[in-house]
């Protein structure tokens, strides 16, 4: 039996997420929540037979019990996530946070999904699109040897960055940098995001620079990077190693390209896919736990 889900936020991320959830064997998208009745995301959700509201999370709350919503995805903005989360947790809904608010623990599936099993968490944070694309590579290097400093550069097509992302650009850099440290394993992290308006739009590009404490073990790092690429490709097939790892003294650099599935925005918007695919994979893991009884959702009073 599939777990019923709600999506909060009918922008690029929420709408792309809907497509991913519709294909999931154990997640069932029931509600799409927006604030603009004319938003493309809400219209698409209605067409797909989902229930919708344009009154924000307050429009959903009264229906949570009758529709047995157990997991909600918040794809609004860092500024409103705290309040959305409070209201949802009062109803005992597990929240997957796709904003950079990061009030819950980070989850980057190929690196630390398993660590969330059995933790009874009611809110997990998916870092940022740039974080999902790059932290697996930082981790691939730090699993071989200590990384003194990890820096990521995420370049996304302007058309794929909605108003929420733009208003939250500081939260993006801060949250990503922190997760490069906490999940990637770098002692110090830095994140840079660039929006490129080229036409036709550029496919998402990500560059990862690691400075290792000692001379990099080129063979072991190269193998670790290739193995991690395969892990990410399991849920984002368009995740590609474009160049590298290249070595220059203690610097290890990896050049990535992330092509999406083209569910909502065209394939250039790999930044949407890597976020929504990671969120879906995380929710599927929790859904299994709910189904087999190892995770009991509790209402936060």
């Amino acid at each position, binding site marked *: 039996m599939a777990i019923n889900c709600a999506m909060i936020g009918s922008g690029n991320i929420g709408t792309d997420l809907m497509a991913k959830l519709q294909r999931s064997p154990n997640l069932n998208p029931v509600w799409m929540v927006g604030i603009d009745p004319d938003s493309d995301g809400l219209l698409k959700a209605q067409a797909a037979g989902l229930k919708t509201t344009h009154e924000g999370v307050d429009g959903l709350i009264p229906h949570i019990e009758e529709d047995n919503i157990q997991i909600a995805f918040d794809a609004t903005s860092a500024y409103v996530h705290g309040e959305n989360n409070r209201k949802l947790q009062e109803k005992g809904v597990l929240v997957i946070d796709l904003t950079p608010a990061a009030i819950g623990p980070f989850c980057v599936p190929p690196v630390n999904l398993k660590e969330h099993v059995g933790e009874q968490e009611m809110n997990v944070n998916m870092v940022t699109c740039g974080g999902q694309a790059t932290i697996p590579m930082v981790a691939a290097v730090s699993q071989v040897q200590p990384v003194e400093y990890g820096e990521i550069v995420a370049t996304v097509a302007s058309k794929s960055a909605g108003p929420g992302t733009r208003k939250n650009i500081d939260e993006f850099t801060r949250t990503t940098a922190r997760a490069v440290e906490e999940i990637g394993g770098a002692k110090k992290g830095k994140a840079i995001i660039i929006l490129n*308006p080229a036409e036709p739009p550029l496919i998402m590009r990500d560059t990862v620079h690691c400075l290792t404490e000692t001379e990099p073990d080129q063979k072991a790092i190269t193998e670790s990077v290739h193995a991690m690429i395969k892990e990410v490709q399991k849920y984002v097939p368009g995740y590609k190693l474009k160049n590298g790892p290249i070595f220059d003294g203690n610097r290890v650099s990896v050049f990535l390209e992330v092509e999406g599935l083209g569910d909502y925005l065209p394939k250039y918007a790999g930044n949407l896919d890597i976020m929504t695919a990671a969120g879906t994979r995380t929710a599927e893991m929790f859904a299994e736990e709910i189904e087999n009884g190892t995770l009991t959702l509790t209402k936060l009073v």
Partner: protein
Amino acid sequence: MNLKGKKIKLHDNALRDGMHSVSHQFSLDDMVRMAVALDEAGMPLIEVTHGDGLGGSSVNYGFGKHTNREYLEAVVPKMKNAKISALLLPGLGTVEDLDMAAGCGISTIRVATHCTEADVSEQHIQKAREYGLDTVGFLMMAHMTSPEALLEQAKKMVDYGANCIYATDSAGYLLPDDVTDRIAALRAGLSNDIEIGFHGHHNMAMGIANSLAAIEAGAVRIDGSVAGFGAGAGNTPLEVMVAVCNRMGIETGVDVDKIMDVAEDIALPLMPTPTRIDRDSLTLGYAGVYSSFLLHAKRAEKNHGVPAREILMALGEMGAVGGQEDMIEDVALEIKKKSA
């Protein structure tokens, strides 16, 4: 061109844009000596930070010899009349960096975005206004959009709280008529209390000519750097600009003899190689590529054996924007693969 009696404010960028030319390695003493000399020459506004601004120190752009805080704390207290500005690129620098710079006593913050992406500057411009800073919206790579579209972006920055808007020719690509069109569109479309500025690069030797076109079209702030010390073939050389302004009767308040001496005696000796229009920096202007890519492309040429000019042309074709320094090595590796 009759510009007699016009009053403009010159803004020296040698201690920020010039950082690109020295791979961000100015010593504190270099910074202080040059800033003090510029102050004495009557330069009203001087920019001091890493070449990529607050938060710029990184693998991607190069680590600074000192932190921005160290540079600002060294320079700001030494100024008698000149004010100090800092640059901030959202996506790289954050509001926390702005807090730091405001605490160091800057008077001006320049919040820089690509010419079509002004809406990433909202958090930073709003915060700068809360601090009461002179707040400039700095629209980079202004050749990549139309004058009308540039105005729409400028209006967003004004709505957030900017009191001055720059058309920034980061690639040194614009020709005088292009500058006239952009500055005139901004002047006509923004209210009179909003100042307009122009930032030039000298890659096509248009620094002075473009600045004059900007003044004629309504710009009152003109960027440049002493001895042209800046990325690519440098910025508009300010000692030359002051001399030209004197001949034309444009008031700058800067002493032409003193600024010539700063150029010759302080700036030039700090340049690792003379700032000039070589084939690579000319390619920046010709192909419309971000000027600070220059040294990174030269380094990629050395490391991967692919000519810098070829790398820069490829970056121009792919529509790379400011900050995409990471693509330089990637493009070099791609060209190498294809020719293998």
